């Protein structure tokens, strides 16, 4: 779900556990590669706070990228 605003496009983020890693996965990051802000956002997404809308240019994740933490999480940016 993309939400248009006057200041630019806003996007909706969510994270879902995936196992095994899909064979077509192209972007993978370990959680230690996230900076503190991205880490906090990732943690909130994983904790089920899936309603997360923010300006597209500020999103620290790629659509479809997999973050390796205590499980594998696929981040969706729409």
């Amino acid at each position, binding site marked *: 779900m993309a939400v248009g605003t006057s200041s630019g496009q806003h996007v909706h983020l969510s994270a879902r556990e995936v196992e095994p*890693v899909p064979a077509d996965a192209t972007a*993978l*990051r*370990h*959680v*230690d590669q996230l900076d*503190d802000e991205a880490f906090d956002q990732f943690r909130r997404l994983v904790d089920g706070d899936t309603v997360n809308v923010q300006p597209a240019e500020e999103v620290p994740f790629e659509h479809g990228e997999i973050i390796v*933490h*205590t499980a594998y999480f696929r981040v969706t940016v729409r």
Partner: protein
Amino acid sequence: MTESYVIIGDGIAGGSAAKTLREESPDADITVITDEGETLYNRILIKEYAKGKIPMEDPLFLHDEEWYEERDIDLELNTHVTHIDPDGHVVHTHEGDDYEYDALLVATGGTPRQLPVDNSDADGVHHFWTFEDARSIADHAEESEQGIVVGAGLLGIDFAAICGARGIEANYLMRGDCWWRYALSEDGAGIIHDALRELDVEPVFQSGVDHFVTDDDGHVTGAVDPNGEEFEGEFVGVSIGLDFNTEFLRGSGIETDDGIVVDEFMETNTEDIYAAGDITRFYDVILEEHAQNGSWDSAKKQGAVAAKNMTAADGEAEEFRHVSSYSISHFKDLPFVSFGHPTIGDDDRERKYSDTEWRRLTFKNGKLIGGVLIGNLKLQSAFKRIIREERDLEGQKDLLIEEDFEMEMLDAAAQEQ
């Protein structure tokens, strides 16, 4: 005149330095020399490859050959630097080639240390640092049934996780009473021991290795500990620390002290020579003393800071000011992070909140300098911020181990004082 920069090592420190150098200096000659046979890959994800969780290799490479071509960076693979001549500003390699530099970055990291015991180099005894290691570990683990893990630290536990993921029943031989005893008490380590047991990896305390046993073909079949007890296993993983790759600096005058000594600008004692990454013993501006750090984010940032300072005009140097973190992500629903400097300090606080949640914080001169969180990482960024801000916590340390600690509690306490 065109500047020329040489980087030795293409790990994350060297790789991030190459990227920053090109951004800062669009016309410079840049050469990256590595004795590995492949371009920069994601060293912190190769354990997942070894576990069999990431079956493909491509997404684990961070730079392909095109990356270097597009940036006009010369990459010399399979090239080992044997000597540096700081007066002549020249680097010599094993093939007799010379590379001249105006500024040099040494980012050569370390090599896993072997146990000083009989048969420690037998077939089937693995050490883990490179992608090549990961491939051979993966191949061997796939066909193994019994394992032995040695090294009760952040890297040793990767071998335990590989055994767990591959269905290898293993004994994890530790010298003391608990895993990572330099940073964890028995309370905290107990949570990790339970998690290891769930992976079919049994911690064995007050143990270690006196020697390995091999068959007639020289393949390891077990380990005998200093108590004389024998453990069977055809798959052995050893992670007891790193020897830093500094041999080629011998005679160069560059100061070393179990690593290369650098200031907060990543500069060595020798003009025009910088160092970054695991290899450094750097001046930590928060600790106010020299320190070491073996983590991805720290190596990446040090590479970038070094590159900026290699190209900076006089008086514009950038200092390395960073609080690193290192996670263990092997246990389902049991997150773990260590941050800052959890093994040093003059004071500490710890508390266990449940069977799966524990926190320990270390302090120096009244300031927070590091810690370990198990089971709940909600406060990871807040604690790192407190370290960065160098808050005076005298009289408030206990607040930080309150289960429901929030930053505002510190502000309120400060106002009351």
